[in-house]
């Protein structure tokens, strides 16, 4: 049985606008233009317990709005939403007991308190029994390597340290669902990896359902079996990463490293090349020093054929085949659905 069901969810905001400048401010005192913004325009999906779903979309697509509706903060304009048998905004208090939320751009820790005091306060707010609290807290401290940070006031933590503490804070009451809204935003490589491996572990080992919104496609590739792509309040795509990729493009890439002398041979424009490479279904994406990137359609020419033709014509030092980078897939999908 699905744990989360969302049907035809819409959320419309009224935004007051005023014209810029002094005259605009004066006019704004008596007359305000109101504009309706459809943040969500008929969203439907369902999630099984233990899924780890990537929820992605360009800025302003409605990702955070969905998270806020699902976590009971915002009341939607219309539509149905059922999380573990509860309607989030109607049974807010019962509902939020079972969920954990991290907003990457905010903190839920008390700014002036040492981290451990924030944790203790959360124990009291969620009424977690002492023995259970200590076990969970110690486990989270070990997993996220928080020991050196516990007595530091939150305002003195770096962003990466704070995010690790925030993740722990969201899980102290052992929620069965966790919403992570851009948890890796602004983090360095090491902190990102720490966050990713932590999310993977709580999903695998504790069976926590995770909904992850992010702009970092490496997060998605590293973590998510399923990806929901949102654009302008609509769902553009919902499926595995491979399905998403193949629905947008079947193209693959061949990256070739040439021996030194051969690089001038290889380019798209015929005039500048001594022996231009032209095979149907293949296109030169870029040629950068001795590295050349080819885009090909495997339905027209197989990878083996293409490699044979390339190696026959040029002196090749190294080559490898890869999928279209997921960033480009997503960018293409966004571009196709731009309003």
């Amino acid at each position: 049985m699905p744990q989360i069901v969302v049907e035809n969810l819409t959320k419309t905001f009224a935004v007051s606008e005023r014209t810029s400048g002094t005259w605009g401010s004066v006019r704004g005192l008596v007359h305000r233009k109101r504009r309706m913004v459809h943040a969500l325009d008929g969203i439907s999906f369902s999630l099984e317990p233990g899924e780890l779903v990537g929820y992605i979309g360009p800025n302003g697509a409605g990702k955070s709005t969905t998270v806020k509706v699902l976590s009971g903060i915002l009341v939607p304009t219309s539509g149905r939403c059922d999380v573990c048998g509860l309607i989030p905004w109607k049974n807010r208090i019962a509902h939020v007991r079972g969920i954990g939320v991290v907003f990457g751009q905010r903190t839920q820790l008390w700014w002036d308190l040492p981290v451990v005091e924030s944790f203790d306060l959360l124990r009291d707010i969620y009424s977690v029994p002492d023995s259970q609290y200590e076990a969970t807290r110690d486990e989270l401290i070990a997993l996220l390597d928080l020991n050196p940070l516990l007595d530091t006031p939150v305002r003195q933590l770096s962003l990466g340290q704070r995010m690790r503490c925030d993740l722990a804070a969201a899980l102290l009451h052992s929620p069965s669902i966790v919403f992570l809204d851009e948890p890796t935003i602004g983090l360095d490589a090491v902190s990102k990896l720490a966050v990713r491996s932590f999310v993977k572990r709580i999903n695998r080992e504790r069976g926590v359902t995770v909904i992850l919104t992010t702009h970092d496609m490496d997060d998605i590739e590293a973590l998510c079996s399923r990806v929901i792509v949102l654009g302008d309040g609509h769902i553009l795509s919902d499926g595995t990463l491979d399905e998403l990729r193949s629905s947008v493009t079947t193209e693959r890439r061949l990256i070739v490293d040439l021996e030194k002398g051969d690089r001038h041979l290889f380019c798209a424009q015929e005039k500048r090349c001594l022996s231009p490479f032209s095979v149907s279904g293949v296109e030169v994406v870029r040629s950068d020093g001795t590295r050349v990137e080819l885009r090909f359609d495997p339905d027209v020419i197989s990878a083996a054929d293409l490699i044979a033709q390339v190696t026959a014509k040029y002196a090749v030092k190294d080559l490898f085949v890869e999928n279209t980078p997921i960033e480009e897939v997503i960018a293409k999908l966004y571009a196709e659905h731009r309003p």
Partner: protein
Amino acid sequence: MSAYYAIIATRFRALLQYRAAAAAGFATQLFWGLVRVMVVTAFYQSSTAHQPMSLSQSITYIWLGQAMLAMLPWNVDREIAAMVRSGDVVYELLRPRDLYAVWFSRILALRTAPTLLRAVPMFVIALLLGMEPPKTAASAIAYVVSVMAAVLLSAAITAMVSISLLWTISGDGVLRIMGALVMLFSGLLVPLPLFPSWAQTALDWLPFRGIADIPYRLYMGHIPASDLHWALVSQLGWTAVFVLIGRLMLWRGTRRLVVQGG
């Protein structure tokens, strides 16, 4: 530990850290207290008419007001204001607790911790400067009980003003109006018994007497300790009214919530 008690205790401890603010507040209130005492002394000396309070009672009233100034609903919890402004208020809504009670708890700490820091030294100094101690033990007890009710009333008014930030975001205007009303009608500017008699009925029907005037007069015996129950009826009745208004506003406010900053 109960959740609300934990919130009060944590916030109380945090607010006790602001020692420089307390020292500055104490010095300012001492200075203004001296000025007000001089003004009221001059007033008594220049008039031969019978006054509703003796000069020493008026002076005591003024010092009580200076000592308890931080308890009045003249500001909001800065953290709540910042949360509403930045949108971090979402985390408050993610707690499995009644948001009004959570905020009321924070505000109770705001109305007590800074007051405690300033009132204790102010009482010591003021007693040396001519403030009278309570005449009877009954008056002292009535004062303490009534101050507790005043804290609740003041917190309920503060909570209502804090919740209005959900609409106004900055709240500067509401706070100015609130500050002016409180200072004038609670007795902080001129002791309320010195207002003309036609104003007394109006003042009786306003909620602000209960946060300052009533406990101060119980302290002096100007309201007899045996009338404590009437004082409490008025104070707690108004508290209930403001709690209800605050709850209603919060209920409306969270339904039309727009979270700032994505």
